[in-house]
Protein backbone atom coordinates (compact mmCIF):
# COMPACT_ATOMS: atom_id res chain seq x y z
CA UNK A 1 0.00 0.00 0.00
CA UNK A 2 1.75 3.13 -1.16
CA UNK A 3 0.98 6.83 -1.28
CA UNK A 4 -1.93 6.49 1.05
CA UNK A 5 -2.55 10.13 1.55
CA UNK A 6 -1.00 11.48 -1.61
CA UNK A 7 -2.42 14.85 -2.58
CA UNK A 8 -5.22 14.85 -0.05
CA UNK A 9 -7.97 17.31 -0.86
CA UNK A 10 -8.12 20.24 1.49
CA UNK A 11 -11.33 20.92 3.35
CA UNK A 12 -12.85 24.38 3.59
CA UNK A 13 -12.60 26.05 6.98
CA UNK A 14 -16.34 26.34 7.20
CA UNK A 15 -19.04 24.07 5.85
CA UNK A 16 -21.79 25.70 3.79
CA UNK A 17 -24.93 26.12 5.88
CA UNK A 18 -27.08 23.01 5.98
CA UNK A 19 -24.38 20.64 4.73
CA UNK A 20 -24.85 18.32 7.69
CA UNK A 21 -28.63 18.28 7.34
CA UNK A 22 -28.46 17.54 3.62
CA UNK A 23 -25.91 14.78 4.15
CA UNK A 24 -27.80 13.06 6.95
CA UNK A 25 -31.21 13.40 5.30
CA UNK A 26 -29.78 11.72 2.20
CA UNK A 27 -28.31 9.01 4.41
CA UNK A 28 -31.54 8.34 6.28
CA UNK A 29 -33.57 8.31 3.07
CA UNK A 30 -31.22 5.63 1.75
CA UNK A 31 -31.76 3.69 4.96
CA UNK A 32 -35.51 3.94 4.54
CA UNK A 33 -35.42 2.55 1.04
CA UNK A 34 -33.01 -0.24 1.98
CA UNK A 35 -34.54 -1.26 5.23
CA UNK A 36 -37.33 -3.27 3.67
CA UNK A 37 -38.54 -4.67 6.99
CA UNK A 38 -39.36 -1.34 8.57
CA UNK A 39 -40.81 -0.07 5.31
CA UNK A 40 -43.17 -3.05 5.22
CA UNK A 41 -43.93 -2.57 8.90
CA UNK A 42 -44.83 1.06 8.23
CA UNK A 43 -47.23 0.33 5.38
CA UNK A 44 -48.48 -3.24 5.39
CA UNK A 45 -49.28 -3.52 9.07
CA UNK A 46 -51.64 -0.53 9.27
CA UNK A 47 -53.37 -1.61 6.05
CA UNK A 48 -53.85 -5.11 7.46
CA UNK A 49 -55.17 -3.66 10.70
CA UNK A 50 -57.58 -1.48 8.78
CA UNK A 51 -58.89 -4.44 6.81
CA UNK A 52 -59.16 -6.42 10.04
CA UNK A 53 -61.11 -3.72 11.83
CA UNK A 54 -63.37 -2.94 8.90
CA UNK A 55 -64.18 -6.50 7.81
CA UNK A 56 -63.90 -8.48 11.03
CA UNK A 57 -65.03 -6.11 13.78
CA UNK A 58 -66.64 -3.40 11.66
CA UNK A 59 -70.13 -4.77 11.27
CA UNK A 60 -70.37 -5.65 14.96
CA UNK A 61 -69.16 -2.20 16.02
CA UNK A 62 -71.21 -0.25 13.51
CA UNK A 63 -73.97 -2.22 11.71
CA UNK A 64 -74.57 0.55 9.12
CA UNK A 65 -71.40 -0.46 7.26
CA UNK A 66 -69.86 2.99 7.66
CA UNK A 67 -67.26 1.88 10.20
CA UNK A 68 -64.50 2.41 7.63
CA UNK A 69 -65.21 6.13 7.65
CA UNK A 70 -65.01 6.18 11.43
CA UNK A 71 -61.81 4.18 11.70
CA UNK A 72 -59.59 5.72 8.98
CA UNK A 73 -58.25 8.65 11.08
CA UNK A 74 -57.27 6.20 13.82
CA UNK A 75 -55.54 3.91 11.33
CA UNK A 76 -53.60 6.87 9.94
CA UNK A 77 -52.20 7.61 13.42
CA UNK A 78 -51.53 3.97 14.11
CA UNK A 79 -49.63 3.86 10.84
CA UNK A 80 -47.59 6.92 11.80
CA UNK A 81 -46.72 5.27 15.10
CA UNK A 82 -45.42 2.11 13.43
CA UNK A 83 -43.49 4.09 10.88
CA UNK A 84 -41.92 6.37 13.47
CA UNK A 85 -40.98 3.60 15.86
CA UNK A 86 -38.13 2.53 13.62
CA UNK A 87 -36.61 5.97 14.19
CA UNK A 88 -36.03 4.99 17.81
CA UNK A 89 -34.20 1.87 16.67
CA UNK A 90 -32.18 3.80 14.05
CA UNK A 91 -31.09 6.44 16.56
CA UNK A 92 -30.20 3.83 19.20
CA UNK A 93 -28.23 1.97 16.56
CA UNK A 94 -26.19 5.04 15.61
CA UNK A 95 -25.47 5.54 19.26
CA UNK A 96 -24.54 1.91 19.95
CA UNK A 97 -22.31 1.39 16.91
CA UNK A 98 -20.16 4.41 17.67
CA UNK A 99 -21.33 6.22 14.55
CA UNK A 100 -22.47 9.18 16.66
CA UNK A 101 -19.21 9.25 18.57
CA UNK A 102 -17.31 9.42 15.31
CA UNK A 103 -19.38 12.45 14.30
CA UNK A 104 -18.86 14.06 17.68
CA UNK A 105 -15.11 14.09 17.12
CA UNK A 106 -15.52 15.85 13.76
CA UNK A 107 -15.96 19.60 13.24
CA UNK A 108 -19.62 19.19 12.23
CA UNK A 109 -22.98 19.75 13.90
CA UNK A 110 -23.32 16.11 14.84
CA UNK A 111 -26.85 16.40 16.22
CA UNK A 112 -28.00 16.89 12.61
CA UNK A 113 -27.88 13.10 12.37
CA UNK A 114 -31.15 13.10 14.37
CA UNK A 115 -32.66 15.64 11.99
CA UNK A 116 -31.84 13.26 9.15
CA UNK A 117 -33.72 10.42 10.83
CA UNK A 118 -36.69 12.66 11.63
CA UNK A 119 -37.04 14.02 8.09
CA UNK A 120 -36.79 10.52 6.63
CA UNK A 121 -39.48 9.36 9.05
CA UNK A 122 -41.73 12.23 7.99
CA UNK A 123 -41.32 11.36 4.31
CA UNK A 124 -41.76 7.64 4.92
CA UNK A 125 -44.87 8.12 7.02
CA UNK A 126 -46.54 10.61 4.72
CA UNK A 127 -46.09 8.10 1.90
CA UNK A 128 -47.53 5.35 4.09
CA UNK A 129 -50.45 7.63 5.02
CA UNK A 130 -51.16 8.18 1.32
CA UNK A 131 -51.24 4.42 0.76
CA UNK A 132 -53.56 3.88 3.75
CA UNK A 133 -55.93 6.58 2.50
CA UNK A 134 -55.81 5.07 -1.00
CA UNK A 135 -56.76 1.62 0.29
CA UNK A 136 -59.42 3.16 2.52
CA UNK A 137 -61.00 4.96 -0.44
CA UNK A 138 -61.03 1.66 -2.33
CA UNK A 139 -62.94 -0.11 0.44
CA UNK A 140 -65.59 2.54 0.93
CA UNK A 141 -64.08 5.48 2.87
CA UNK A 142 -66.12 8.52 1.82
CA UNK A 143 -64.57 11.76 3.10
CA UNK A 144 -66.49 15.02 2.69
CA UNK A 145 -63.49 17.29 3.03
CA UNK A 146 -62.84 20.34 0.86
CA UNK A 147 -59.34 20.95 -0.51
CA UNK A 148 -58.64 23.28 2.41
CA UNK A 149 -59.74 20.67 4.92
CA UNK A 150 -57.55 18.05 3.24
CA UNK A 151 -54.57 20.35 3.50
CA UNK A 152 -55.30 21.04 7.16
CA UNK A 153 -55.77 17.34 7.89
CA UNK A 154 -52.51 16.42 6.17
CA UNK A 155 -50.70 19.22 8.02
CA UNK A 156 -52.02 17.87 11.31
CA UNK A 157 -50.97 14.33 10.37
CA UNK A 158 -47.51 15.68 9.53
CA UNK A 159 -47.35 17.48 12.87
CA UNK A 160 -48.35 14.28 14.64
CA UNK A 161 -45.69 12.31 12.74
CA UNK A 162 -43.06 14.85 13.76
CA UNK A 163 -44.23 14.65 17.36
CA UNK A 164 -44.08 10.90 17.67
CA UNK A 165 -40.83 10.70 15.66
CA UNK A 166 -39.05 13.16 17.96
CA UNK A 167 -40.36 11.21 20.91
CA UNK A 168 -39.02 7.97 19.44
CA UNK A 169 -35.69 9.66 18.67
CA UNK A 170 -35.37 10.73 22.31
CA UNK A 171 -36.29 7.22 23.45
CA UNK A 172 -33.68 5.82 21.08
CA UNK A 173 -31.01 8.10 22.54
CA UNK A 174 -32.01 7.40 26.11
CA UNK A 175 -32.14 3.63 25.72
CA UNK A 176 -28.85 3.40 23.88
CA UNK A 177 -29.41 0.02 22.28
CA UNK A 178 -31.80 -0.95 19.50
CA UNK A 179 -33.54 -3.76 21.40
CA UNK A 180 -34.40 -1.55 24.38
CA UNK A 181 -35.55 1.25 22.07
CA UNK A 182 -37.86 -1.20 20.37
CA UNK A 183 -39.27 -2.35 23.72
CA UNK A 184 -39.97 1.12 25.10
CA UNK A 185 -41.44 2.19 21.78
CA UNK A 186 -44.02 -0.55 22.01
CA UNK A 187 -45.74 1.26 24.87
CA UNK A 188 -46.28 4.30 22.66
CA UNK A 189 -47.74 2.15 19.91
CA UNK A 190 -50.37 0.98 22.33
CA UNK A 191 -51.78 4.46 22.98
CA UNK A 192 -54.06 4.66 19.92
CA UNK A 193 -56.00 1.64 21.19
CA UNK A 194 -56.84 3.59 24.35
CA UNK A 195 -58.27 6.52 22.42
CA UNK A 196 -61.24 7.31 20.23
CA UNK A 197 -59.45 5.62 17.29
CA UNK A 198 -61.58 2.49 17.14
CA UNK A 199 -64.65 3.20 19.27
CA UNK A 200 -66.17 6.45 20.56
CA UNK A 201 -64.88 7.21 24.05
CA UNK A 202 -68.49 7.32 25.37
CA UNK A 203 -68.65 3.55 24.99
CA UNK A 204 -65.66 2.97 27.28
CA UNK A 205 -65.95 2.23 31.01
CA UNK A 206 -65.65 5.40 33.09
CA UNK A 207 -62.07 5.02 34.29
CA UNK A 208 -60.79 4.15 30.82
CA UNK A 209 -62.80 7.01 29.36
CA UNK A 210 -60.86 9.40 31.58
CA UNK A 211 -57.61 8.05 30.17
CA UNK A 212 -58.83 8.07 26.59
CA UNK A 213 -60.18 11.61 26.66
CA UNK A 214 -57.11 13.13 28.25
CA UNK A 215 -54.36 11.62 26.18
CA UNK A 216 -52.92 13.41 23.15
CA UNK A 217 -54.06 10.96 20.51
CA UNK A 218 -57.80 11.42 20.98
CA UNK A 219 -57.88 15.18 20.10
CA UNK A 220 -55.63 14.52 17.06
CA UNK A 221 -57.97 11.79 15.85
CA UNK A 222 -61.08 13.86 16.55
CA UNK A 223 -59.60 16.78 14.61
CA UNK A 224 -58.71 14.66 11.60
CA UNK A 225 -62.13 13.03 11.72
CA UNK A 226 -63.73 16.46 11.89
CA UNK A 227 -61.73 17.75 8.95
CA UNK A 228 -62.18 14.71 6.71
CA UNK A 229 -65.71 13.62 7.49
CA UNK A 230 -67.37 16.78 8.79
CA UNK A 231 -68.03 15.46 12.31
CA UNK A 232 -68.18 18.20 14.95
CA UNK A 233 -64.78 18.31 16.69
CA UNK A 234 -65.13 21.38 18.93
CA UNK A 235 -61.83 22.64 20.28
CA UNK A 236 -60.05 19.37 19.48
CA UNK A 237 -57.77 20.94 16.81
CA UNK A 238 -56.45 23.49 19.31
CA UNK A 239 -55.91 20.85 21.97
CA UNK A 240 -54.25 18.58 19.41
CA UNK A 241 -51.80 21.24 18.21
CA UNK A 242 -51.01 22.23 21.81
CA UNK A 243 -50.27 18.62 22.74
CA UNK A 244 -48.08 18.08 19.67
CA UNK A 245 -46.08 21.28 20.04
CA UNK A 246 -45.64 20.66 23.77
CA UNK A 247 -44.41 17.11 23.21
CA UNK A 248 -42.05 18.18 20.40
CA UNK A 249 -40.48 20.85 22.61
CA UNK A 250 -40.08 18.38 25.49
CA UNK A 251 -38.73 15.61 23.24
CA UNK A 252 -36.22 17.91 21.51
CA UNK A 253 -35.01 19.17 24.90
CA UNK A 254 -34.73 15.60 26.17
CA UNK A 255 -32.86 14.51 23.02
CA UNK A 256 -30.45 17.41 23.33
CA UNK A 257 -29.60 16.51 26.91
CA UNK A 258 -29.28 12.81 26.08
CA UNK A 259 -27.19 13.52 23.01
CA UNK A 260 -24.66 15.42 25.13
CA UNK A 261 -24.69 12.95 27.96
CA UNK A 262 -24.09 9.92 25.76
CA UNK A 263 -20.82 11.18 24.29
CA UNK A 264 -18.13 8.55 24.62
CA UNK A 265 -20.41 6.09 26.41
CA UNK A 266 -21.17 2.88 24.70
Amino acid at each position, binding site marked *: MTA*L*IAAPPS*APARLPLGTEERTFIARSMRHTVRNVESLLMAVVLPVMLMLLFVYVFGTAISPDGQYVTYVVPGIILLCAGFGASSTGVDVANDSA*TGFMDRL*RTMPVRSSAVITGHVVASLARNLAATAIVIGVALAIGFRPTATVGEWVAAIALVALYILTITYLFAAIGLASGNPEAANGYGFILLFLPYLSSAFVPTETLPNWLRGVAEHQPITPVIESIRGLLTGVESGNAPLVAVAWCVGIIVAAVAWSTIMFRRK*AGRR
Partner: protein
Amino acid sequence: MTTAIDVQGVTKSFGRQAVLAGIDLRVTRGTVFALLGPNGAGKTTLVNILSTLVQADGGSARIEGADLRRDPVGVRRRIRLTGQSAAVDELLTGAENLRMMGSLAGLRAIANRRRTAELLQQFGLTDAADKPVKAYSGGMRRRLDIALSLVTVPQVLFLDEPTTGLDLRSRLELWDVIRSLRAEGTTILLTTQYLEEADQLADRIGVLRQGRIVAEGTPTELKQSVGGEVVEVRGSDGRVLHEVPTDGSVHALRAALDAIDARGLTGTVGLRRPSLDDVFLALTEPDAEPNGHSDPRTDTGADALVTTGRNHR
Protein backbone atom coordinates in the same frame (compact mmCIF):
# COMPACT_ATOMS: atom_id res chain seq x y z
CA MET B 1 11.04 18.11 17.16
CA THR B 2 7.61 19.66 17.31
CA THR B 3 5.16 18.36 19.85
CA ALA B 4 1.88 17.30 18.23
CA ILE B 5 0.14 16.01 21.36
CA ASP B 6 0.92 17.55 24.71
CA VAL B 7 -0.91 16.15 27.70
CA GLN B 8 -0.38 17.46 31.22
CA GLY B 9 -1.81 16.01 34.38
CA VAL B 10 -5.05 14.75 32.86
CA THR B 11 -7.32 13.11 35.40
CA LYS B 12 -10.72 11.47 35.07
CA SER B 13 -13.00 9.64 37.45
CA PHE B 14 -16.28 7.91 36.79
CA GLY B 15 -18.22 8.18 40.02
CA ARG B 16 -15.78 7.33 42.77
CA GLN B 17 -13.51 5.29 40.54
CA ALA B 18 -10.41 7.09 39.32
CA VAL B 19 -9.80 5.97 35.76
CA LEU B 20 -6.95 8.33 34.92
CA ALA B 21 -4.77 9.41 37.80
CA GLY B 22 -2.72 12.15 36.18
CA ILE B 23 -1.43 11.48 32.69
CA ASP B 24 1.54 13.35 31.25
CA LEU B 25 2.38 12.63 27.67
CA ARG B 26 4.22 14.17 24.73
CA VAL B 27 4.02 12.89 21.21
CA THR B 28 6.37 14.29 18.58
CA ARG B 29 4.85 15.29 15.27
CA GLY B 30 5.04 12.59 12.62
CA THR B 31 5.65 9.73 15.03
CA VAL B 32 3.61 6.77 16.21
CA PHE B 33 2.93 6.56 19.93
CA ALA B 34 1.47 3.35 21.33
CA LEU B 35 -0.49 3.32 24.57
CA LEU B 36 -0.03 -0.18 25.82
CA GLY B 37 -2.02 -1.61 28.66
CA PRO B 38 -4.38 -4.33 29.82
CA ASN B 39 -8.16 -3.99 29.71
CA GLY B 40 -9.44 -1.35 32.08
CA ALA B 41 -6.15 0.52 32.26
CA GLY B 42 -7.79 3.69 30.93
CA LYS B 43 -6.58 3.62 27.31
CA THR B 44 -9.96 4.29 25.74
CA THR B 45 -10.83 6.95 28.30
CA LEU B 46 -7.65 8.84 27.47
CA VAL B 47 -8.32 8.60 23.73
CA ASN B 48 -11.91 9.73 24.27
CA ILE B 49 -10.70 12.73 26.25
CA LEU B 50 -8.09 13.69 23.65
CA SER B 51 -10.65 13.41 20.86
CA THR B 52 -13.13 15.71 22.68
CA LEU B 53 -15.69 12.99 23.37
CA VAL B 54 -15.30 13.08 27.13
CA GLN B 55 -14.25 15.97 29.34
CA ALA B 56 -11.29 15.51 31.62
CA ASP B 57 -11.78 16.35 35.30
CA GLY B 58 -8.40 17.98 35.58
CA GLY B 59 -5.24 18.74 33.64
CA SER B 60 -4.83 20.13 30.18
CA ALA B 61 -3.94 19.02 26.69
CA ARG B 62 -3.06 20.57 23.38
CA ILE B 63 -3.36 18.94 20.00
CA GLU B 64 -1.22 20.70 17.40
CA GLY B 65 -1.53 23.86 19.45
CA ALA B 66 -5.30 23.72 19.94
CA ASP B 67 -6.35 23.63 23.58
CA LEU B 68 -8.71 20.81 24.37
CA ARG B 69 -10.81 22.73 26.84
CA ARG B 70 -10.87 26.17 25.22
CA ASP B 71 -11.01 25.18 21.57
CA PRO B 72 -12.60 21.73 21.15
CA VAL B 73 -13.74 22.60 17.62
CA GLY B 74 -10.16 23.52 16.74
CA VAL B 75 -9.07 20.14 18.08
CA ARG B 76 -11.74 18.44 15.97
CA ARG B 77 -10.38 20.15 12.87
CA ARG B 78 -6.97 18.64 13.51
CA ILE B 79 -7.87 15.09 14.46
CA ARG B 80 -9.77 12.01 13.43
CA LEU B 81 -10.69 9.11 15.63
CA THR B 82 -11.24 5.54 14.61
CA GLY B 83 -12.77 4.01 17.70
CA GLN B 84 -12.95 0.48 18.98
CA SER B 85 -16.07 -0.71 17.23
CA ALA B 86 -16.16 -0.17 13.51
CA ALA B 87 -18.30 2.97 13.33
CA VAL B 88 -19.41 2.45 9.78
CA ASP B 89 -22.88 2.67 8.32
CA GLU B 90 -24.00 -0.89 7.69
CA LEU B 91 -26.84 -0.10 5.33
CA LEU B 92 -24.74 2.07 3.05
CA THR B 93 -22.11 0.77 0.67
CA GLY B 94 -18.42 1.37 1.27
CA ALA B 95 -18.38 4.08 -1.39
CA GLU B 96 -21.44 5.77 0.09
CA ASN B 97 -19.85 5.76 3.53
CA LEU B 98 -16.77 7.48 2.14
CA ARG B 99 -18.78 10.00 0.15
CA MET B 100 -20.86 10.81 3.23
CA MET B 101 -17.66 11.64 5.14
CA GLY B 102 -16.50 13.61 2.11
CA SER B 103 -19.59 15.83 2.16
CA LEU B 104 -19.20 16.32 5.89
CA ALA B 105 -15.62 17.42 5.23
CA GLY B 106 -16.95 19.95 2.74
CA LEU B 107 -15.63 18.28 -0.41
CA ARG B 108 -17.36 19.23 -3.64
CA ALA B 109 -18.96 16.46 -5.66
CA ILE B 110 -16.08 15.90 -8.10
CA ALA B 111 -13.34 16.01 -5.46
CA ASN B 112 -15.44 13.75 -3.27
CA ARG B 113 -15.81 11.10 -5.96
CA ARG B 114 -12.14 11.22 -6.79
CA ARG B 115 -11.09 10.91 -3.15
CA THR B 116 -13.55 8.06 -2.57
CA ALA B 117 -12.14 6.13 -5.52
CA GLU B 118 -8.58 6.75 -4.29
CA LEU B 119 -9.26 5.54 -0.77
CA LEU B 120 -11.19 2.49 -1.96
CA GLN B 121 -8.25 1.54 -4.09
CA GLN B 122 -5.62 2.23 -1.46
CA PHE B 123 -7.48 0.20 1.14
CA GLY B 124 -8.19 -2.68 -1.22
CA LEU B 125 -11.94 -2.13 -1.23
CA THR B 126 -12.57 -1.26 -4.87
CA ASP B 127 -14.27 -4.58 -5.62
CA ALA B 128 -16.54 -4.19 -2.61
CA ALA B 129 -17.20 -0.48 -3.20
CA ASP B 130 -20.85 -0.91 -4.11
CA LYS B 131 -21.70 -3.67 -1.68
CA PRO B 132 -23.47 -2.77 1.55
CA VAL B 133 -21.06 -2.77 4.50
CA LYS B 134 -23.28 -5.39 6.17
CA ALA B 135 -21.68 -7.89 3.81
CA TYR B 136 -18.08 -6.89 4.68
CA SER B 137 -15.68 -9.06 6.68
CA GLY B 138 -14.20 -7.79 9.95
CA GLY B 139 -10.96 -6.80 8.26
CA MET B 140 -12.73 -4.95 5.45
CA ARG B 141 -14.86 -3.05 7.95
CA ARG B 142 -11.81 -2.00 9.91
CA ARG B 143 -10.04 -0.83 6.76
CA LEU B 144 -13.11 1.16 5.73
CA ASP B 145 -13.33 2.52 9.26
CA ILE B 146 -9.81 3.89 9.03
CA ALA B 147 -10.32 5.09 5.45
CA LEU B 148 -13.30 7.13 6.71
CA SER B 149 -10.92 9.00 8.98
CA LEU B 150 -8.67 9.87 6.05
CA VAL B 151 -11.08 11.49 3.62
CA THR B 152 -9.26 14.67 4.46
CA VAL B 153 -6.00 13.88 6.15
CA PRO B 154 -5.90 14.80 9.81
CA GLN B 155 -2.77 16.11 11.50
CA VAL B 156 -3.32 13.66 14.31
CA LEU B 157 -5.00 10.28 14.01
CA PHE B 158 -6.27 8.36 17.03
CA LEU B 159 -6.69 4.62 16.60
CA ASP B 160 -8.31 2.83 19.52
CA GLU B 161 -7.32 -0.83 19.40
CA PRO B 162 -7.24 -0.87 15.62
CA THR B 163 -6.51 -4.57 15.26
CA THR B 164 -8.46 -6.11 18.13
CA GLY B 165 -10.52 -9.01 16.87
CA LEU B 166 -8.84 -9.19 13.48
CA ASP B 167 -7.24 -12.25 11.99
CA LEU B 168 -3.49 -12.28 11.40
CA ARG B 169 -3.69 -11.33 7.75
CA SER B 170 -5.94 -8.34 8.35
CA ARG B 171 -3.72 -7.30 11.23
CA LEU B 172 -0.63 -7.30 9.04
CA GLU B 173 -2.47 -5.32 6.37
CA LEU B 174 -3.47 -2.71 8.92
CA TRP B 175 0.09 -2.47 10.16
CA ASP B 176 1.11 -1.60 6.61
CA VAL B 177 -1.57 1.09 6.51
CA ILE B 178 -0.32 2.60 9.76
CA ARG B 179 3.29 2.51 8.58
CA SER B 180 2.45 4.29 5.33
CA LEU B 181 0.46 6.94 7.19
CA ARG B 182 3.44 7.56 9.43
CA ALA B 183 5.77 7.67 6.45
CA GLU B 184 3.66 10.47 5.04
CA GLY B 185 3.80 12.55 8.16
CA THR B 186 0.63 11.87 10.15
CA THR B 187 1.04 11.75 13.90
CA ILE B 188 -0.63 8.62 15.23
CA LEU B 189 -1.61 7.71 18.75
CA LEU B 190 -2.83 4.14 18.95
CA THR B 191 -3.88 1.95 21.82
CA THR B 192 -3.22 -1.74 21.91
CA GLN B 193 -3.12 -4.73 24.18
CA TYR B 194 -0.64 -6.42 21.91
CA LEU B 195 3.01 -6.02 22.76
CA GLU B 196 4.08 -7.11 19.35
CA GLU B 197 1.95 -4.44 17.77
CA ALA B 198 3.49 -1.70 19.88
CA ASP B 199 6.95 -3.12 19.20
CA GLN B 200 6.35 -3.24 15.45
CA LEU B 201 4.69 0.13 14.95
CA ALA B 202 5.58 2.57 17.65
CA ASP B 203 8.40 5.07 17.89
CA ARG B 204 7.58 5.39 21.56
CA ILE B 205 5.46 3.35 23.92
CA GLY B 206 3.67 4.38 27.07
CA VAL B 207 2.65 1.57 29.37
CA LEU B 208 -0.63 2.43 31.05
CA ARG B 209 -1.62 0.69 34.23
CA GLN B 210 -4.45 1.62 36.55
CA GLY B 211 -4.72 5.11 35.11
CA ARG B 212 -1.00 5.91 35.24
CA ILE B 213 1.79 5.78 32.72
CA VAL B 214 4.17 3.48 34.53
CA ALA B 215 6.85 3.44 31.85
CA GLU B 216 7.53 5.41 28.72
CA GLY B 217 10.23 5.18 26.10
CA THR B 218 11.28 3.66 22.83
CA PRO B 219 10.76 -0.09 22.56
CA THR B 220 14.51 -0.55 23.01
CA GLU B 221 14.64 1.64 26.10
CA LEU B 222 11.78 -0.23 27.68
CA LYS B 223 13.44 -3.56 27.03
CA GLN B 224 16.66 -2.30 28.52
CA SER B 225 14.84 -1.05 31.59
CA VAL B 226 14.10 -4.58 32.75
CA GLY B 227 17.73 -5.66 32.59
CA GLY B 228 20.51 -6.31 30.15
CA GLU B 229 20.04 -9.80 28.94
CA VAL B 230 17.95 -12.79 29.85
CA VAL B 231 19.52 -16.19 30.37
CA GLU B 232 17.11 -18.86 29.26
CA VAL B 233 17.23 -22.60 29.65
CA ARG B 234 15.55 -24.69 27.00
CA GLY B 235 14.67 -28.35 27.34
CA SER B 236 15.36 -30.88 24.60
CA ASP B 237 11.93 -30.11 23.09
CA GLY B 238 12.89 -26.45 22.72
CA ARG B 239 10.51 -25.31 25.40
CA VAL B 240 11.74 -22.55 27.70
CA LEU B 241 12.16 -24.11 31.14
CA HIS B 242 13.50 -21.14 33.02
CA GLU B 243 14.55 -17.56 32.52
CA VAL B 244 16.84 -15.36 34.58
CA PRO B 245 17.30 -11.73 33.69
CA THR B 246 20.74 -10.19 34.23
CA ASP B 247 22.23 -6.75 33.97
CA GLY B 248 24.68 -8.10 31.41
CA SER B 249 27.74 -8.16 33.72
CA VAL B 250 30.03 -11.19 34.14
CA HIS B 251 29.11 -11.38 37.78
CA ALA B 252 25.39 -11.45 37.14
CA LEU B 253 25.81 -14.04 34.39
CA ARG B 254 27.75 -16.32 36.77
CA ALA B 255 25.12 -15.83 39.45
CA ALA B 256 22.42 -16.67 36.95
CA LEU B 257 24.18 -19.88 35.92
CA ASP B 258 24.66 -20.80 39.57
CA ALA B 259 20.96 -20.27 40.14
CA ILE B 260 20.14 -22.56 37.23
CA ASP B 261 22.50 -25.19 38.63
CA ALA B 262 20.93 -24.84 42.05
CA ARG B 263 17.54 -25.70 40.54
CA GLY B 264 19.00 -28.79 38.93
CA LEU B 265 17.91 -27.81 35.45
CA THR B 266 19.47 -29.45 32.45
CA GLY B 267 19.18 -28.22 28.91
CA THR B 268 20.72 -25.72 26.54
CA VAL B 269 21.44 -22.26 27.80
CA GLY B 270 21.05 -19.15 25.68
CA LEU B 271 21.17 -15.39 26.05
CA ARG B 272 18.45 -13.16 24.65
CA ARG B 273 17.43 -9.54 24.78
CA PRO B 274 14.41 -9.00 27.01
CA SER B 275 11.16 -8.84 25.07
CA LEU B 276 8.38 -6.34 25.57
CA ASP B 277 6.47 -9.18 27.20
CA ASP B 278 8.94 -8.96 30.05
CA VAL B 279 8.39 -5.23 30.35
CA PHE B 280 4.67 -5.53 30.08
CA LEU B 281 4.33 -8.28 32.64
CA ALA B 282 6.70 -6.56 35.01
CA LEU B 283 4.72 -3.36 34.79
CA THR B 284 1.16 -4.49 34.56
CA GLU B 285 0.88 -7.43 36.93
CA PRO B 286 -1.54 -6.33 39.62
CA ASP B 287 0.96 -6.70 42.46
CA ALA B 288 3.95 -5.43 40.52
CA GLU B 289 5.86 -2.35 41.51
CA PRO B 290 6.21 0.08 38.62
CA ASN B 291 10.03 -0.18 38.72
CA GLY B 292 10.44 -3.91 38.66
CA HIS B 293 9.29 -7.24 39.86
CA SER B 294 11.07 -9.85 41.88
CA ASP B 295 10.25 -13.47 42.11
CA PRO B 296 10.78 -14.97 45.54
CA ARG B 297 11.60 -18.35 44.02
CA THR B 298 15.00 -17.19 42.85
CA ASP B 299 18.02 -15.63 44.40
CA THR B 300 19.36 -13.58 41.55
CA GLY B 301 18.74 -10.21 43.12
CA ALA B 302 15.89 -8.02 44.20
CA ASP B 303 15.48 -6.13 40.95
CA ALA B 304 15.43 -9.18 38.74
CA LEU B 305 12.49 -10.26 36.70
CA VAL B 306 11.93 -13.95 36.38
CA THR B 307 9.46 -15.86 34.37
CA THR B 308 9.22 -19.57 34.03
CA GLY B 309 8.01 -21.90 31.37
CA ARG B 310 6.72 -19.32 28.94
CA ASN B 311 7.43 -19.32 25.28
CA HIS B 312 8.93 -16.28 23.73
CA ARG B 313 9.12 -15.18 20.21
